[in-house]
C-alpha cells in the first residue's frame, strides 16, 4: 500500500520533471543547454522505465541514449558552432507550432483517455528477470525470436555509419564563399563543360 502510494507519487514527480525538462529542451535558446536538458529527460525517462519493470531498457537508455546520442549531439553542437547562435524562432512559427502540438496533444490525450486497452489481469506473473528473456529472444531463431531485426539493425547501423562518414568527411572548401539566401541555380554547381579525357559512347 505504501509502496503503491510512493509509486504514484514518484510517477507524478518524475513525470512533471520530465515534462519540464522536455519543455526546456524545446525552448532553450542555447543549444548546449538544450542538450543537457535532453540528457535529463532521457535520464528521468530511464527511471520511468524502471518503474515499468524494464530495467534492461533503462540501462540501454542510459548507455546508448545518454552515453551515445547526447554526446553525439553535443559534438554536433560544437562542430556547427550552434551554441554561439541563440535559437530564437519567429513568433509566428512558435504560434503555429504551439497550436499544432496543442491540438495534437488534446486529440491524442482524448483518444487515450477514451480508449480501452486490453489490460492484462493482475494475476499474470511478471517474469522476475526479463533481461535474460530479452537476451534470449534477441538471439532466438525460433518463432518468438528477434534474430532477424537484430541483424537488420546491425546493417542499418553499418549503413548509417558509412553514410555518416562519407557525408561528414572533410571536403575541399568551395571556391567562392557561399552566401545564404542567394539564388543558386543548378548550373552553378558544375564546371564549365570541358572534356579533357577521351570520351566514349555512341552518338545516337
Amino acid at each position, binding site marked *: *500500500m*505504501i509502496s*503503491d*502510494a510512493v*509509486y*504514484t507519487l514518484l510517477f507524478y514527480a518524475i*513525470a512533471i520533471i*520530465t*515534462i519540464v525538462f522536455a519543455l526546456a529542451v*524545446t525552448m532553450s535558446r542555447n543549444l548546449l543547454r538544450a*542538450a543537457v536538458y*535532453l540528457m535529463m*529527460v*532521457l535520464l528521468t525517462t530511464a527511471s520511468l522505465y524502471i518503474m*515499468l*519493470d*524494464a530495467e534492461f*531498457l533503462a540501462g540501454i*537508455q542510459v548507455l546508448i541514449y545518454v552515453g*551515445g546520442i547526447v554526446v*553525439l*549531439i553535443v*559534438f554536433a553542437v560544437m*562542430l*556547427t558552432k*550552434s551554441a554561439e547562435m541563440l*535559437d*530564437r*524562432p519567429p513568433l509566428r*512559427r*512558435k504560434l503555429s*507550432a504551439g497550436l*499544432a*502540438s*496543442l491540438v495534437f*496533444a488534446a486529440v*491524442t490525450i482524448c483518444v*487515450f483517455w477514451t480508449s480501452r*486497452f486490453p*489490460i*492484462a489481469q493482475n494475476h499474470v*506473473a511478471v517474469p522476475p528477470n*526479463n533481461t535474460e*528473456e*530479452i537476451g534470449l*529472444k*534477441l538471439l532466438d531463431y525460433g518463432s*518468438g525470436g528477434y534474430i532477424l531485426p537484430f541483424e537488420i*539493425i546491425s546493417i542499418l*547501423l553499418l549503413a*548509417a555509419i558509412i*553514410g555518416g*562518414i562519407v*557525408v561528414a568527411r*572533410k571536403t575541399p*572548401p*568551395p571556391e567562392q564563399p*557561399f552566401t*545564404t539566401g542567394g539564388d*543558386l541555380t543548378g548550373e552553378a554547381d558544375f564546371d564549365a563543360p570541358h572534356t579533357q579525357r577521351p570520351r566514349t559512347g555512341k552518338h545516337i
Partner: protein
Amino acid sequence: MIESLSLHKPHIEHWLVLSAILFAIGLYGLLSRRNAIGILMSIELMLNSAVLNLAAFNRFVAPASVDGQIMALFVIAVAAAEAVVAMAIFVAIFRYRRIVDVNRMDLMKD
C-alpha cells in the same frame, strides 16, 4: 492521502498521456526550432516518448512477454542511427554554408 494515492496508482492511461505530452512537446520543438540540431533533439524527444509508450504497453498489456521492450531497444538503436546520419548531414551543410538554420534552407522552393 496515502490511501488515495495508492488507489490512484498510475494506470496505463496516465502513462500514455505522459508519453503523448512528451510527443507533443517534441512536436512543438520540431515545428518551432530554427536550429536543425535543435529539431533533431525534439525528434529524439518524440522517439523517446514512443519508447515510453512501448514500455508502458508491455507492462500493462502483455507483462508476460518482453516484445515491447525489445521493440523499444530497436527504436533506441534506430534513433542512434538516425542521429548519426542527421548529424553528419548537418555538419556537412555547416561546412559548406556555415549555418544550420532551417529557416534559411530555402534554396529550393517555388
